[in-house]
């Protein structure tokens, strides 16, 4: 058992709990960034260098900056944070715990086939190998993803535009 795997999993789960439990939304965002960095560490351990880099650039870089920016823009802090009644929180924790229990109980006796030493290839996560697959087999989905991103950009600009009048939808 790799100690690095245990350490990264432990930190990732703790900081994921921090996202849920932190009172201040800014702390939640910082915990989420820590989670993303540990997940990038996991990707590195699995020899998926491309995903590790993209995870840090896209998630920890772009998406979390967007979250942090919106939270600071709306001036959310501990005082403005709404809370559910204790009973609802308890029920939610029970529901989430049961989901975990069911998933673990269902997967406990499943033994997924591990690696195959004869055909194993440790280089599949490298940028050049993934690039070849991406631009040969997945060229069409790749282009569709660019259209999706363009549509999302146009949509968010349109949503964010202030219109005249009392209510702006």
């Amino acid at each position, binding site marked *: 058992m*790799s100690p*690095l795997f245990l350490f990264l*999993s432990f930190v*990732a*789960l703790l900081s*994921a709990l921090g*996202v*849920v439990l932190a009172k201040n*939304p800014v702390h*939640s965002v910082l915990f*989420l960034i820590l989670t993303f960095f540990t*997940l990038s560490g*996991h*990707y590195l351990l*699995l*020899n*998926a260098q*491309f*995903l590790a880099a993209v*995870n840090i650039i896209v*998630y920890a870089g772009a*998406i979390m900056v967007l*979250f942090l920016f*919106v939270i600071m*823009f709306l001036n*959310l802090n501990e005082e403005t944070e*709404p809370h*559910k009644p204790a009973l609802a*929180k308890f029920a*939610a*924790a029970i529901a*989430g*715990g049961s*989901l*975990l229990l069911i*998933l673990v109980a269902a*997967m406990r006796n*499943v*033994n997924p*086939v591990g*690696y*195959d030493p004869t055909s194993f*290839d*440790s*280089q*599949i*996560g490298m940028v050049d190998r993934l690039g070849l*697959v*991406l631009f040969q*087999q997945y060229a069409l989905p790749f282009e569709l*993803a660019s259209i*999706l991103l363009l549509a*999302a*950009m146009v949509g*968010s600009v349109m*949503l964010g535009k*202030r219109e005249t009048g009392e*209510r*702006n*939808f």
Partner: protein
Amino acid sequence: MDQTIPEVIRTVPLQYYVFFASALFAIGVTGVLVRRNAIIIFMCVELMLNAVNILLTAFSAYRADPNGQIFVFFIMAVAAAEVSVGLGIIVMIYRNFQTTDVNLLSRLKW
């Protein structure tokens, strides 16, 4: 070929990644149920997406099949688009109602 099998893949059973991703996913679900702030709920959805990503990557790396990692790449692209539109909607809701509390935004709830 000049390659060695990474230590994690040799020593950690694939099942442990399933458990780890399940735990991360369950924490995300709990977060969606517990919190009332729309932005935090959104962040917990990101947590669930990442639980799926780590599982796909683990299976892809263990089975030496690049398709799983390509799929993770597309999930990240879709997540980026989703976040930009979602946060745009949340900012617009805040401009109209001065709150991001999902319990006050229940007009469409039967």
